[in-house]
C-alpha cells in the first residue's frame, strides 16, 4: 500500500459546510406604477380613480404567471417590499464557526478518473490540539465501488467544544486498478469564542447577588435566547428583572409566552443579567462547615440560522469566600473622643454561633502582613484571655487601646484564637477612628 504522490489519485474529497439555511433579506427597488406615473397628490382628483389606465397597469403588476422582468420592477403584493420571500439559502462562504455550535459538513468523494474505483474505506476525523474524534468510518461496510465520474456523499456532524485550530482529516483507502492507494486530505478551520462573560458577586447579609455581563464578540448581531443560572446544590436562584417582577428561574411552564429574543449587537454589544442567590435552609449547615463557595454556572443559548442553537456553559462561579461563621466578633462601642497617646476602651462582643461550647480564647492585635507600622495598639498586656463561651452565647470584651498618631487611623487585625482547638478565626474587619490632639 502506498501513499501515492499528489495528483495521481483518482479520488478526491470535496467539502462544504452545512449549517441551517437562512432567509436572505434584501428589500428591493420595486414600485407601484401609480407612484411613478403621477404626482403623489394626483389622487386627490376623484376622476383619476375612474381611469382605465390604472386597471390596465394594476392587473399587469399582479399577473405573476408573466415570468418576464416585470416582477423585478413592479410589486405583486405589498409585502414584496420586504425583500423576504421564504426562499432559503446556504451561506455563501464557510463563515465563522463559534464554540458551542455544531459543525456540520457535506463531504463528497469524487472519482475523476476514467475507470471504476473499488473497495473504498472512508474515514473522517476531527483533530484538535487536545483530541481526535472519529466522525465516520466505513471499514465495517466499505463502499463497494464508485464508477468513473461518479461520487459518494456523506454528512458529518460534530459539537464544537474547544477553541482554536481544527483539522478535519478525510482519508480514503481504495483499489485503483490493482494498486491499493491511500488518500489523505486535510481541511482546516478555526473556532473562536462568540461571547465573553464577566461576572461580579456581591454579598449582602445572607443574600448573594450575581451580576453577569454578556458581550458579543462576533461580527454580526447575536440573538441570545436564554441565559440560565444553574445553581450549585443547596442554592436557589431568582432572576431579577428591571420591571420589578421576580421570576423563579426554572419555572417557565410550557405554553407560557416565549420571552422576546434579546439582541446583543455585533462587535462588543452587551447585555446584563442579575440573579439573586440564596442558600436553601437545609444546605446552610453543610456548606458552612465545608466552607464551599461555589455558586453555580451560567448556561447561555443563542440562535443562529433558522433557530439553530449554540450553547455554552461558564466555569463554576465562586461566591465571596466564607468568613468563619462559628465565632462572631462585633464592635459595640468606640468612644467618640479619642486623644493622641491617651488610652481608650473599645467594647466588643464575642458570639458563639455554634451549638457547642467554644474556647477559651486569646485576643490580640496581629501585625499587618505588609509589616506597616501600626498607630493603634493594645495598651497594657498584649494578649487578652477570654473564658469559654457557651453554645449560642456571647461574652463582652473591653480592649484597652492607645493611638500614637493623629487623624484617621485604623484599628486592624483583631484576632480571636481558640486555645483548645488551636484555631484562629478571621480577623475583624478594620475599624476607623479619628484621633485628636489633647
Amino acid at each position, binding site marked *: 500500500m502506498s501513499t501515492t504522490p499528489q495528483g495521481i489519485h483518482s479520488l478526491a474529497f470535496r467539502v462544504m459546510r*452545512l449549517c441551517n439555511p437562512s432567509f436572505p433579506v434584501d428589500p428591493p427597488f420595486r414600485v407601484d406604477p401609480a407612484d*411613478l406615473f403621477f404626482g403623489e397628490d394626483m389622487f386627490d382628483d*376623484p*376622476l383619476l380613480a375612474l381611469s382605465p389606465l390604472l386597471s390596465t397597469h394594476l392587473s399587469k403588476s399582479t399577473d405573476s*404567471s408573466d415570468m418576464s422582468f416585470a416582477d423585478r420592477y413592479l*410589486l405583486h403584493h405589498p409585502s414584496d417590499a420586504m425583500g423576504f420571500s421564504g426562499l432559503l439559502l446556504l451561506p455563501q462562504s464557510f463563515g465563522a464557526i463559534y464554540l458551542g455550535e455544531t459543525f456540520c459538513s457535506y463531504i463528497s468523494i469524487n472519482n475523476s478518473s476514467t475507470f471504476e474505483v473499488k473497495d473504498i474505506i472512508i474515514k473522517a476525523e476531527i483533530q484538535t490540539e487536545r483530541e481526535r474524534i472519529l466522525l465516520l468510518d466505513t471499514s465495517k461496510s466499505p463502499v463497494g465501488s464508485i464508477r468513473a465520474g461518479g461520487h459518494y456523499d456523506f454528512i458529518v456532524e460534530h459539537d464544537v467544544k474547544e477553541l482554536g485550530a481544527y483539522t478535519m482529516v478525510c482519508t480514503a483507502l481504495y483499489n485503483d486498478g490493482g494498486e491499493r492507494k491511500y488518500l*489523505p486530505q486535510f481541511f482546516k478551520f478555526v473556532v473562536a469564542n462568540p461571547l465573553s462573560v464577566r461576572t461580579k458577586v456581591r454579598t449582602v447579609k445572607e443574600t448573594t447577588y450575581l451580576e453577569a455581563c454578556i458581550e458579543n464578540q462576533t461580527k454580526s448581531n447575536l440573538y441570545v435566547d436564554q441565559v440560565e443560572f444553574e445553581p450549585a446544590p443547596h442554592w436557589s436562584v431568582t432572576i431579577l428583572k428591571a420591571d420589578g417582577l421576580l421570576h423563579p428561574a426554572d419555572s417557565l411552564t410550557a405554553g407560557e409566552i416565549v420571552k422576546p429574543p434579546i439582541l446583543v449587537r455585533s462587535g462588543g454589544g452587551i447585555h446584563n443579567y442579575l440573579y439573586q442567590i440564596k442558600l436553601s435552609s437545609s444546605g446552610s449547615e453543610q456548606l458552612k462547615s465545608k466552607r464551599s463557595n461555589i455558586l453555580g454556572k451560567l448556561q447561555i443559548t443563542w440562535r443562529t440560522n433558522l433557530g439553530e442553537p449554540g450553547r455554552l456553559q461558564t466555569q463554576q462561579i465562586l461566591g465571596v469566600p466564607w468568613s468563619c461563621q462559628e465565632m462572631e466578633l462585633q464592635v459595640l462601642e468606640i468612644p467618640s473622643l479619642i486623644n493622641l497617646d491617651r488610652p481608650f476602651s473599645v467594647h466588643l462582643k464575642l458570639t458563639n454561633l455554634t451549638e457547642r461550647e467554644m474556647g477559651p480564647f486569646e485576643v490580640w492585635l496581629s501585625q499587618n502582613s505588609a509589616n506597616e507600622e501600626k498607630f493603634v495598639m493594645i495598651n497594657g498586656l498584649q494578649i487578652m484571655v477570654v473564658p469559654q463561651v457557651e453554645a449560642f452565647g456571647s461574652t463582652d470584651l473591653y480592649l484597652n487601646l492607645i493611638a500614637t498618631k493623629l487623624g484617621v487611623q485604623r484599628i486592624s487585625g483583631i484576632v480571636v484564637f481558640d486555645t483548645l482547638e488551636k484555631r484562629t478565626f478571621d480577623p475583624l474587619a478594620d475599624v476607623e477612628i479619628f484621633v485628636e490632639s489633647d
Partner: protein
Amino acid sequence: MDEPTPATDRPTNQFGSLNNLAHELASLEDLAIRGSWRSIIDKVSRTRSLNLLTSPHDHLIYLSYNVLALSKLSRFADASSEIDTLDDFNSHYYKYETYPQLYPNRSGSMIPFSLRFIHAQLPMKLENRQEGLDRFYLLLKFIREKIKEKESDNLHDSVKTWKRRENFVLNCLIGHHLGDKEFNVCLDLIKDLINRDYLDPVLVSKLGCIQMQIGDIEGAKVSFNRVEMMLNEGKNDGYSFLSEVQFRNLVNRNKALVYLVGKDYVSAVREYEECIERDHTDVVAINNKALCLMYLRDLSDSIKVLEKALERIPTIALDETLFVPGFEVRLIAEIVQVLISKDGRDFARL
C-alpha cells in the same frame, strides 16, 4: 366606461393613455417592464438633451425613471447624486399651483412618490444605514400626516392611496430591520400591520418565518395554522393578490418549513413537490426542495431539480438580487467543481 369630461390641463386630460401623462411615458414604462435599464438611461439622456421635456412634471417623471434605472444597475452613488440635484421635495417648485398656466385648477405635490421611497432606500445601499432608517421613519411620519389631511378633506381615493403607501413603507422597514436581525422591531411592526383592518396570509406567513428564524417554533406553527385556516375559510375576498393556486402553495410551503426545521427533510420535500406539481413556476418551492435534497445527502438530485427549473424559467438564472434562485443553482453546481488543496487550505469559499 365613463370618459371623464376633458379638463383643460394636460396631466388629467382623459387619462386615456400613458403618453397623456408625460412625454413618451408608454415607451419608458415598456422598457422598465422588460428590465432594459440602460436603455432607459439612454432615453432619458437623449430626451433631455433634445429639450423635449417641457413641463416640470415631465422632468420629474423622467428623473424618477432615471434614478430607478441607476438603482437597478447598482449605480447607487449616481442615483443619489441625481436626486440631490433637486430641491427639497416639499419645495413650492414641485407644486402644481406654482404653475397655474400649466396646471389650472390643480394643486398639490407633483413629486412621484417612488422618488421619496428611492431617496430613503439609497443610503442603505451606500453603507449609511442610520441615515436610511431615519429617512424611512420621517417618510412614515410624512405619510401619516398626509392621511390625516386627506381624511379631513374627505378625499377617499387619496386616503386609500396614502394608506397603501404607509403599508409599503412599513414593509420596507420590516425588511431593513430583518436584514440586521433586529427581530423585536420586526415582530412589533408586523404584528401592528396584521392587526389592522385586513388579514393578509402572505404577511402572516412571513411572520411565521421570522418566528422560525428566532427559534420560536411554536409561535411559527400558530401563525402557519392561522394561514391554513384562512385558506379553508375562503378568506381571500378583498385580497385579489393571491390566486387559489398561490394560496395553496403558500400553505404547503409553510408546512414544509416546519418539517425542515424539525430536520424531517423527506416530508419537506413531499410538501414542496406538491407545490411544484401545482405551479411549476414556484421558485421558492423549487429552491427549497433542492436544498432539502442536499441535507438528504442527495447532491445529484438537488442539482437536477435546479437545472430543470432553469430550463423552464430562464429568467430566474439572472441574479440581479441576492435571493434569486439562479444564485443558488450556481452555488450547488460549483460544489462539484470545487477543489480543495490537499495540504489543507481553508474550506471552500463559494
